[in-house]
């Protein structure tokens, strides 16, 4: 594994543009979105909760987290993505920037993968094309492509024996199976994936342990924790699929700000239980280093997000459309995520 920053453009990127050009797609220039974050919905869950630690609120030690990162016990990296939607009369294109940022001894190394897909419900259109995709519901199919591209990037470029902080839940929506598969593959490379969930209505703890006392797990954690603390670890056992079992904790990096859930697959926990305190301290340190209470994120994830957005901003979508000979057309209701 080398340590150079990369911008990887998917193999079919240019070919797809040619095909779109040949198919005379009518894009709507005014409807191209700005780079936005992509949120996979959280999993409400259906199963049991077990408390793994005695304390309800455990102090985190950012100094130890700093030392853990500095001493390079494990490389830490962050993943986030950003997307642009480009609607057309004949369908919709999504351009994704998947961003993996590795914090090595001296600097942040970004590796960004750019992918473009076009989805249509016109069978006539796909008959003349190998890359334009048929989709009854573009929002569903595009998510599958999204998680595939994300997996490709992480499996190919994440460093062996590192920790990856991934923005979004481990389990959620139509991508749970792919996410679980990705998790498995990462574990095989000795990588520890930790998922970071900022917003959710999840009520697994509340429903199982504090019925009626709180509206959600986030409310419970907010009221239980002081700044710089995390809750006990909780073990979730899914009623239907063992694959969906997970371990999670809530941390509160700043006062008066909603806590954040950190979650790991059950297998990850079993393999790396002894390192978790170091990892949580490090994550707390990275929250402090970022220091943005209006958008709490570990620093490395925030930087990954910034790179993803920057790459999309740097790509002149208008230019691509015009160069491809595609003609913008009248206003069109956006087919959004």
């Amino acid at each position, binding site marked *: 594994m080398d340590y150079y920053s990369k911008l990887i453009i998917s193999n079919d990127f240019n070919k797809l543009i040619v095909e779109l050009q040949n198919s005379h797609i009518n894009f709507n220039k005014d409807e191209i979105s700005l780079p936005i974050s992509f949120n996979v919905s959280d999993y409400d869950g259906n199963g049991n909760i077990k408390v793994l630690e005695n304390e309800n609120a455990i102090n985190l030690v950012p*100094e130890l987290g*700093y030392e853990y990162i*500095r001493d390079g016990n494990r490389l830490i990296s962050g993943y986030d993505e950003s997307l642009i939607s480009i609607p057309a009369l004949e369908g919709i294109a999504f351009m994704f920037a998947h961003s993996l940022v590795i*914090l090595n001894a001296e*600097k942040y190394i970004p590796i960004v993968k750019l992918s473009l897909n076009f989805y249509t419900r016109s069978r006539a259109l796909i008959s003349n094309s190998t890359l334009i995709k048929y989709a009854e519901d573009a929002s569903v199919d595009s998510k599958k492509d999204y998680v595939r591209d994300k997996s490709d990037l992480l499996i190919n470029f994440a460093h062996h024996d590192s920790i990856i902080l991934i923005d979004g839940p481990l389990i959620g929506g139509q991508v749970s199976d792919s996410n679980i598969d990705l998790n498995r593959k990462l574990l095989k490379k000795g990588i520890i994936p930790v998922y970071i969930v900022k917003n959710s209505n999840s009520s697994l703890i509340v429903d199982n342990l504090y019925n009626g006392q709180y509206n959600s797990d986030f409310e419970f954690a907010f009221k239980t924790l002081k700044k710089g603390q995390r809750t006990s670890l909780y073990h979730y056992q899914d009623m239907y699929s063992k694959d969906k079992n997970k371990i999670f904790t809530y941390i509160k990096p700043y006062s008066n700000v909603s806590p954040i859930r950190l979650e790991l697959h059950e297998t990850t926990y079993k393999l790396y239980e002894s390192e978790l305190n170091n990892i949580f301290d490090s994550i707390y340190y990275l929250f*402090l*280093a970022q*220091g943005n209470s209006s958008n709490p994120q570990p620093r490395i994830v925030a930087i990954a997000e910034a790179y993803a957005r920057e790459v999309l901003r740097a790509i002149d979508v208008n230019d691509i459309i015009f160069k491809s000979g595609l003609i913008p057309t009248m206003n069109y209701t956006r087919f959004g995520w």
Partner: protein
Amino acid sequence: MLVTLGEEDGKIKLISKESDNDGILPYGSFITVEDGNRKFILRVEDSIQINSFSISPMLADMDIKPLLQDQKVRNLVLAVRIKEIPPRDDGLNSYIKPMLFARRSNQEEIDYIMTNQTGIPVFLSSMYAYDSQVLKDENKRPILVNIPEKFFFYQTLITGATGSGKTAAMKYLSQYFVEKLDTLNGPGAVLAINVKEDDFLYMDKSSKTNKEEILKEWEALGESSHGIDSFRIYYPGNNIPLSKNMDKNKAKSITIKTKNLDPENLSGIIQNLPAKGAEQIIDIFRYWQANVMGKRGEGYKMSDFIRYLDDPAKNRIYKVLTANGDIYEYTLHAATLNSLKNAFVTASQFFDVENADELKASDILERRKMSVIDLSQKNAIGFGAILLRDILNKIYEEKSNGNSNVPILVIIDEVHEFYGNSKTYEALKTLDAIARKGRSLGIGVIFASQNLEDIPSGISKVVNSKIFFKGYSEREKRKIINDDALGPGYAISRIYGLSFVKMIKFPLPFGGLYEK
């Protein structure tokens, strides 16, 4: 190594590559952007450090260290285009595309953008915050630029506080003029007016310094310390300068004989009078010179004229002879008479001095010779103003008549002492005429002063080059850059024929420099 990002408000924006980020490129630096076979030379207008990633103060609050990665800084630069190489012949300029690499320009490239590659070598310099320094190429060699010789004849203004390097620069330019000037079949002659201390009095001596940086500068110029071979100091009357370092054998007493004095030249001494009063005293003197001097027992000396002025029997009523030949009577105001008498009494010690010669144009107009008129002695300025006007007239006449083809550089330090204020602007109008016609006659003038505010507005109109050393202006509010941060020898320049250069450093002169 920098990377272009695009254009912003007419300036090219560049950022340093994180992997090659040694430091901040200061204001005034030159950079070269390469795009295949094409090059662009840019000059840095603004340069700041920015953090690659903003860092949270929360860590400081908790006394926790930041990550090394978060301490990375970059250099953001805004630069203006100076030249495209090779130039296009279709009337267009090429785009400077984003994501092109840029580096510091080298000497060869700086030479290329110069329209005139010969001239007076000075160092290109730059500034960041309070630090001014000589520009270096990527191999740490200082970058030189040549001021075109023609600049001498387009007149120059130099300002700067004591210790700013203003005088050293004038010495450097003088030495170049008498040793190296190539234009007008040079070398030329220099006439410098020394008004304070002994600044110009030992230009015949080698400069003495042990400072490594100065020796290195001389080495970069291929020079070593040496004085000017042909050197002469002229001092008024019996007031030989008191300088210890001066060679007394090269000092010569000069005077003006009152009987030869052009009445118009008196304007120098009476510059504090209202214009009308100044005109009258010139006409009174003219009458005295034509009709009284040497007649019926009257003498030929300035003291005789003072006695004439002071005669109570005249009751302050004097005959005047105008330049047109009209004669009439005029009554001087008592206060005017008094201040006139004082001025003449003070200056009279320098007139009609026995064993002293009058200065001739030919004394000055000698190739490779530097002449210094020393007016640093007490009360010498008033006489100096008359003398200066006298000698400048002679030089101007000699050159106008085609009697001399020797190029000459006149250096007038503390010029406001001679030029007076705007009301007495007429006082040295010869200088004005010289400055305006200098180009065709081969006469260059350097006007120097401590403050920009001291410079009469008339001068600003005749000079084409301005060189500002530290402290050039205390009152100018809208300074382009903080001139207080200029180190000795560093100057902001607006030099004729060198418009793209904003900051230079003068090398120290090879002669006439000693550690005070």
